[in-house]
């Protein structure tokens, strides 16, 4: 505290501009959104205060329930696949003797592609008339598994989720790999000397020591899923209906297509609160188990 008091002007000078920008662009935006979520507003006429009506209507709307379910299921599957595959690939690359940089670059390649390009590509891949997926399934004698991947209401959600999960596995590989490289080699050598095999080292040393990094990945996956937009919008427009829509897409339609900015703000607030709760929940879990 003494140091803070001593250098308070210096702190203000250097932190001040950022604080001003953060307050204006983030905090003011959040409180404005909160206000608009309590109004009916089409962005052309003046907002009309309606209290919590937007929230009641959102949570009693069956479409919103579908979108909420899609987002949470998508989050669960993303956490499952992106974290687990991220850890496995990161560990394999970490333990590799040759080609470390090459593997890391290859794994990271999909991340640098534009989401729109990946979505377009997967739209063609999953096209049941001309795409390769159904053709390959037929060739290997699995014709019963062919589907209308982008139209069948049973599978369209998973079809849209696939490129979303695939594209960013590489990002978490690189993050986790960086974390693994900070593990002292002596710890692993000691474990090996004590007879620990690769599996024991991975589960009993690497993962516990990476919990803080894993938490960062969880936060990134959570915020990413709540902002998910491009793949769903480009591949299927969130459809049929809202069967492959996520909260981000639904919010976009409410704001820019339905011209219901009040309801869109409501969804934005739901996204904010849900993301905060999930982040805090995982923080508590990780804190319990980390070293």
């Amino acid at each position: 505290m003494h140091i803070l008091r001593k250098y308070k002007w210096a702190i203000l000078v250097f932190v001040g501009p950022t604080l001003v920008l953060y307050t204006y662009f983030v905090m003011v935006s959040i409180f404005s959104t909160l206000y608009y979520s309590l109004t009916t507003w089409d962005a052309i006429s003046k907002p009309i205060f309606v209290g919590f009506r937007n929230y009641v209507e959102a949570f009693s709307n069956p479409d919103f329930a579908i979108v909420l379910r899609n987002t949470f299921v998508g989050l669960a599957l993303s956490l499952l696949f992106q974290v687990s595959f991220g850890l496995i690939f990161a560990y394999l690359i970490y333990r590799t003797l040759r080609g470390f940089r090459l593997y890391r670059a290859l794994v990271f390649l999909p991340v640098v592609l534009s989401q729109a390009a990946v979505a377009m590509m997967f739209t063609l891949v999953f096209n049941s008339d001309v795409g390769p997926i159904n053709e390959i399934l037929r060739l290997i004698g699995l014709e019963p598994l062919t589907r209308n991947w982008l139209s069948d209401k049973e599978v369209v959600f998973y079809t849209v989720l696939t490129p979303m999960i695939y594209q960013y596995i590489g990002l978490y590989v690189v993050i986790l790999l960086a974390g693994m490289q900070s593990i002292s080699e002596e710890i692993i050598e000691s474990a090996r000397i004590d007879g620990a095999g690769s599996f024991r080292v991975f589960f009993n040393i690497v993962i516990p020591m990476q919990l803080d990094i894993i938490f960062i990945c969880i936060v990134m996956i959570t915020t990413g899923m709540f902002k998910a937009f491009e793949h769903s919008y480009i591949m299927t427009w969130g459809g049929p209906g809202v069967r492959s829509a996520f909260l981000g897409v639904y919010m976009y339609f409410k704001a820019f297509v339905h011209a219901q900015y009040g309801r869109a703000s409501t969804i934005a607030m739901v996204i904010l609160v849900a993301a905060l709760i999930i982040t805090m929940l995982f923080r508590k879990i990780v804190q319990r188990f980390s070293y």
Partner: protein
Amino acid sequence: MGNYRKKGLLIGIAVFLMIGIVLPVAAGGQKEGAAPVTIRFAHMWQDGASEDATKSVAILKQVEAANPGMKLVHEVVTGDEMRNKIRVDVAANNAPDMWQFWVGGVLADYVAKGILLDIDNFLAKSKKVKKEDISKSAWDSCTFDGVVRAFPRNISVGIFAANAEIFKKYSWAYPKSWAEFLALGKKFDAQGVASSNIGSKGGNPSHFWYGDLVCQYEAGVTGTATIGKTLNFRQRPFIKAAEYCDEMRAAGLFPKDVMANGDWAPSIAYYDQGNVAFCYTFAWCFANMSEEIIQKTEIIPIPKLPDGERDTSKFIQGTTNDAYCINAKSFEDPKKQGYLVALMDAVAFDIGLMESQIGSIVSVNNNVMKQVKLDQIADKMMVKTLKYRLANNVSGSPMIWQELPSNKLQFDYQAALDELWAGAITPAEYIDKVQKSCDEYKASK
């Protein structure tokens, strides 16, 4: 001393930072009397994207060159995104001076807000366009409470066509009745031929096809024309059309993947591959059809529904489709008015004539169309289409989408069609969904 130096350094950095932020802001903006008048025009012509777009931009540049006091700012947004852009701009009190838009219900909010110019004010000053050049029905599509609020641009020109080569190969006849149409589904499947390109993504092109079935009933035509007022979707033609669409789906007459092959570009690309029997599309897709497929394409009437009442060879979906809007406030600015008149004259006449000659649109301006020679239209599919329309006296029937009075209603209608096409909901559920949206709109008014 050391502390004072540090404090002085800190204060100096802070002052430098402040100057660095304030100076560019103060230096920005136009000095009065020095710079040209900026006119912002939001349009869909991406230079280089197509012949039509490139030539349109070239004409706009000529307008700018002919008016050295004007600086024309192009705000290019293609497709349905223009709807979003204009709404956001208006919300930010930053509407463009002029923009390309659609007719009908999409204009209602802007009319209510008083943003759109009374087009008679422009016509009074125009050197190239007169009111009598354009038909009353075209003006009516842009008229609200007796005042014309947008300048109509073109009529939507659609076709239902067959790949003649496929039909000749398998010795199939073009279907005239609905039963013949449905029976073709199995034949197509047996030969590995794709049935049609009538997919549905965001309601395209499905909402046009659905409207064509609705308008096979006399009550469907009047029901469509008045849907904006009645908001009653539980009318027999709408219900029957939904049931017939579901029959088509069950018979395999839609693409297998209606979403992947829905929307305009994917649906025409699908047909262009050459293994699709039927094509249903509109003039804005003609440029994407290869010469090879155009030669194989034969326009035919839509098969008649079992209880259909109207001759399907005489009509197809399509009335006035697009329009240009002028910002009323911009027009009232004496500095901008002259330039807006010059710009609108060029857009409404010169670009309209060029586009009609290329074949990318059919202008609503009769004076323009008189100067267009049919056989000299560059787009061969448009030539075929116009010849067919003239030979059969084809007229346009009203469009449900256009008559719906709000963006949300339009979206809900289109989204429900996606679900109907995909078989995710039944025809009864489709009608319920759209009716529910109509009821919510009614309750909100």
